[in-house]
């Protein structure tokens, strides 16, 4: 038994040494590292990869970006596993900040959610408001009309939150009346790109952010077309916040502050506004600084005042 323990001990030490060696080597890397949690729909557009290359080159800060859906992004931030949170879900952001996890909240860009669907629009909802559109889809779906399908992310992502908000303003109770209400309403529980593929394969309607849709349509010959793209409830607002050092004193607040200030600076805003023009013929995001006053509804967020390093 003693020997068994000593053998065990030796291997545990070996494991510890290997891990420790790895830790030391990562700390010795030259650029400083800023950990960012974000959502799949923002990451899948490729904007953040472009920002990562540019920012490393210019400021010698390596942006370590992890995208795993809004729920996990926020959970990571609430555990202090990242330094910065970059998301698009105003209701979830408000809770995050009210609970004291986030500071230095700034808007960086916006675009619009759109409802896309089969080109021949079997439900005939083109030209309707988003609320009228979803109400029509539900009425037809409940009646068992052939070929009417709506695909939902169903994953508590920012896009899913926006979809729930539309159902609510159309007068439905989402939990009671929509989710699981029939075969016409399908929840994928997957990211934006995967859900778009599913919708494309099924010939279904789906709510998506415009950026992912354009990226996906180009890369993947997606058969879906834009059906509804106007309505106040379709605003998609991206914002950034630093994880509060009062909750987690070890996070990289210095680089987080600098990165926030760069994103809202003229250089950062131009970078965002230019992204996608070359590839898609139009920008994927509108820089928020182009608005006269972003603190008014429906934006309700400061996008101009530089932030200072938060103190605990």
């Amino acid at each position, binding site marked *: 038994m003693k020997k068994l323990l000593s053998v065990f001990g030796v291997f545990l030490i070996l494991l510890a040494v290997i891990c420790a060696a790895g830790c030391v080597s*990562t700390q010795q890397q030259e650029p400083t590292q800023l950990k960012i949690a974000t959502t*799949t729909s923002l990451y899948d557009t490729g904007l953040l990869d472009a920002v990562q290359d540019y920012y490393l080159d210019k400021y010698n800060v*390596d942006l*370590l*970006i992890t995208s795993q859906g809004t729920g996990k992004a926020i959970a990571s931030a609430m*555990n202090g596993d990242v330094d910065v949170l970059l998301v698009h879900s105003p209701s979830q952001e408000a809770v995050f900040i009210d609970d004291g996890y986030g500071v230095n909240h700034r808007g960086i860009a916006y675009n619009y959610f759109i409802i896309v669907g089969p080109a021949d629009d079997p439900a005939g909802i083109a030209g309707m408001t988003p609320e009228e559109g979803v109400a029509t889809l539900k009425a037809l779906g409940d009646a068992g009309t052939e070929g009417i399908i709506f695909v939902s992310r169903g994953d508590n992502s920012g896009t899913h939150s926006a979809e729930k908000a539309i159902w609510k303003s159309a007068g439905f109770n989402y939990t009671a009346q929509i989710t699981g209400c029939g075969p016409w309403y399908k929840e994928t529980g997957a990211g*934006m790109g995967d859900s778009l593929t599913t919708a494309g394969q099924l010939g279904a309607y789906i709510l998506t952010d415009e950026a992912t849709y354009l990226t996906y349509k180009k890369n993947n010959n997606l058969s879906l077309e834009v059906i509804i793209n106007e309505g106040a409830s379709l605003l998609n607002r991206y914002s950034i916040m630093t994880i509060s050092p009062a909750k987690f004193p070890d996070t990289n607040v210095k680089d987080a502050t600098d990165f926030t200030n760069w994103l809202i600076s003229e250089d950062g805003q131009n970078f965002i506004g230019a992204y996608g023009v070359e590839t898609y013929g139009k920008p994927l995001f509108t820089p928020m600084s182009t608005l006269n006053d972003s603190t008014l509804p429906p934006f309700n967020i400061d996008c101009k005042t530089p932030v200072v390093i938060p103190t605990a």
Partner: protein
Amino acid sequence: MGEITDGFLEAITLIVTMNPELMEIAGRSLYVSSIATLVAALIAIPIGAIIYYYDFRGKRTVINLVQTLYALPTVIVGLLVYLLVSNSGPLGPLKLLYTTNAMIIAQVILVSPLIVGLAIAALSGLDKEMKYTTMSLNARAYRAMMTLVRETKFAILSAVVLAFGRAIAEVGAVMMVGGNIRHFTRTLTTAITLNTSMGEFSTSIALGIILLTIALIVNFGVNFFQHYNGRMKDD
């Protein structure tokens, strides 16, 4: 159909031109899975030998348990390691989350049972006489175990190769604890997941080809080694 052929063509181009990001990702996959397999082998082979060598109460149950863990779901391992190394977890101060070390830990947990179980199975294939002879000839237990393990080295090597295969093809756990961070923790499998969700199917196909090629090379290598050694013995 066009999509697949186009994808393949672009995949070949990416591979032939040694696309730097692709090579970096493949290198990282290889690094993480090799270290994980090595560490797992160093831990698991002795454990397997110990379980085989000693007779104790509940030995059957232990072996059954180990074999059950062959089917350990990768996402459960991912969740477990995530909770351990997350900032608010017990290993939080080590700052392991979203590093390759966290991915290695996850893969070690994932493949160790496989090596333990297959090592026991390999040793059990030995003649019982051999066990008792070795026991009587060698005063020290660990020398006896070494002798037995050496006898079954090819079977155990196959177990290690199988473990490597499971490690490098795994996606759920490394996605959760590595975070799929570009230039940092992105591996072949997480990159395939990401590129597929972005609609970049050709990149996914290229990464898939590289993944299969690595598996092929490793298996050919082991086969060659076994044949070569087998011939030497016969001579």
